[in-house]
């Protein structure tokens, strides 16, 4: 590793700037980020431009069902991506569905990250039996495949957005806990923590103000990967029939509903939501990939 070179840069650049510069060296990753931000913006703004509110039953008309892309709806607008089996405009449904999928992904990721980071920090800082116990629990959780855990949890809790989020949180928290503990162990042994202790700062303060910020980089990497994973897992659960409710479809439910039309030539019902899901996840993964490269010190040239 060329440590002197890195040091030279650090002198002129703040870590954030260096990070931005390194990240933007990869044009594909920047493209991924732009696409992702665009998707988020489009999803948030869906009510302002989507021709149909697909969740408002009085705006969805059965007589519009199964129309091919480009057909005119009874309400006069054009269904650019066609309509599904009950008359939902696929274009509108995709962006409304994205809201739900992203919300589920973000919410589960946020809660899991908070939970996992707290637990991981406690493990690293407390050490001893607490640490052993927590890490055994983490190992156990990680050894069980996410889809199985989620499936059983949903079987236990039942259907619904809140339950899916709960299941996804329980599936994900361990990844954060493990990551944070790993970094925190390294940080704990560093001089500044020792110094802070000597200054008599409280445990909470040391943990959250000093150690945590230094562990964030790997957590961000995990978070991007896990968000993509959560969105895809929700789609899978919906396909298996234990996911979100039919009437307010997420992307996963849209794809699952369209699945039954796959052999009948009405490809648009499943394909377009599938593409939307694919683009979203690929965009997140591109960003995540680059983040991993940038934030992994061993690859620094």
């Amino acid at each position, binding site marked *: *590793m060329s440590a002197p070179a890195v040091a030279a840069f650090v002198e002129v650049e703040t870590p954030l700037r260096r990070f931005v510069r390194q990240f933007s060296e990869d044009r594909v990753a920047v493209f991924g980020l732009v696409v992702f931000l665009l998707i988020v913006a489009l999803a948030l703004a869906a009510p302002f431009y989507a021709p149909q509110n697909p969740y408002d039953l009085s705006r969805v008309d059965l007589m519009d069902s199964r129309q091919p892309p480009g057909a005119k709806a009874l309400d006069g607008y054009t269904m650019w991506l066609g309509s599904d089996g009950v008359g939902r405009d696929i274009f509108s449904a995709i962006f409304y569905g994205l809201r739900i999928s992203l919300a589920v992904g973000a919410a589960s990721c946020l809660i899991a990250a908070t939970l996992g980071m707290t637990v991981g920090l406690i493990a690293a800082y407390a050490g001893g039996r607490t*640490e*052993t116990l927590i890490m*055994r629990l983490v*190992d*156990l959780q*990680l*050894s*069980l*495949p*996410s*889809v*199985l855990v989620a*499936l*059983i*949890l949903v*079987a*236990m*809790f*039942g259907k619904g957005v809140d339950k899916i989020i709960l299941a996804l949180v329980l599936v994900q928290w361990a990844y954060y806990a493990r990551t944070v503990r*790993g970094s925190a*162990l390294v940080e704990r042994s560093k001089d500044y923590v020792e110094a802070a202790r000597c200054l008599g700062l409280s445990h909470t303060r040391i943990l959250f103000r000093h150690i945590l910020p230094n562990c964030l980089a790997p957590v961000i990497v995990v978070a991007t990967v896990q968000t*993509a994973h959560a969105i*895809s897992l929700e*789609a*899978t659960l919906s*396909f*298996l*029939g*234990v996911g979100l409710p039919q009437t307010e479809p997420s992307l*996963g439910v849209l*794809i*699952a509903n369209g*699945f039954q039309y*796959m*052999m009948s030539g009405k490809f648009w019902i*499943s394909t377009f939501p*599938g593409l939307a*899901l*694919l683009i979203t*996840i*690929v965009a997140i*993964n*591109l960003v995540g*990939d680059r983040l991993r490269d940038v934030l992994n010190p*061993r*690859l620094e040239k």
Partner: protein
Amino acid sequence: MLAFILRRTGQGLLVIAAMIALVFFGVNVIGDPVWILVSPEMNQQQVEEVARSLGLDRPIYEQFWHFLKGLAQGDLGRSFVHGTPAIGLILERMPATLELAFVALVMAIVLGIPLGLYAGLKPDHPLARSIMAVSILGFSLPTFWVGLMLIMVFAVMLGWLPATGRGPVGHFLGIETSLTSLEGWRFVLLPALNLALLKISLVIRLARAGTREVALLDYVKFARAKGLSPRRVIGVHILKNILIPIITVLGLEFGSLVAFSVVTETIFAWPGMGRLLLEAIQRLDRPVIVAYVIVVVCLFVVINLVVDILYSLVDPRVRLTENAA
């Protein structure tokens, strides 16, 4: 070593016990299986009779006690739906699932390592970039969607491979498997590829990342400088070093393959235990859900243990202690 194994086995048993209790109470919280099981013509009295005969009218702790008593004798309860022992149903379906997961695992290794190695050695080559692009797709595409696409292309449009089911079953070293005949392989190819896709991408990424890291290490640079043939550098120095983490991860991922087979088995009508679980969940066949979890958790505990031991054998730097952080 022995102390380690004993300790881990003990912990494993604890984990299994905890899972049993959790899942047993968990699945008993929602729904009422009686109403799925009975035929619609039955009146309420008959329905209550069925609930009684299945023991569903008893309080939950009593059911649990009853279950534990059975468990002590190796009886995991009888399926509500099939009326036969739940463990038997699962073991009957297990070989098919393990076979599928095994073929998928082999696919992941055979396809993933060379591709990842290449992508890691020449990270800027267009081919390497396309490999990575494809691997991202493999990561991102929903399994169920890919499954149907595979059927559409290879079974319906091209007619090369059968769309559903498992091939004729033969015996190999006492194991029941469909891999003994060519016909069996024809059946397993599509579902295994579907299941393997995610893992192929994973292996590609692991191999690439490993190669890139190892290639920068001093001893590899030294080996190159020494004038060793690239083949030898790759074969001996790089491959050996990246294999360890890949094998560790794959060992653990085998469990995930077994779990993800739920999706693949559903699409390809593969007669494995994943589909059994899904059906059990849909029909609230509680004994089967609980038995499945017990079997699978046991499987994972064993796999983890074996991976840990193997890992320590391959890499002497790892000591088999508990807090080796």
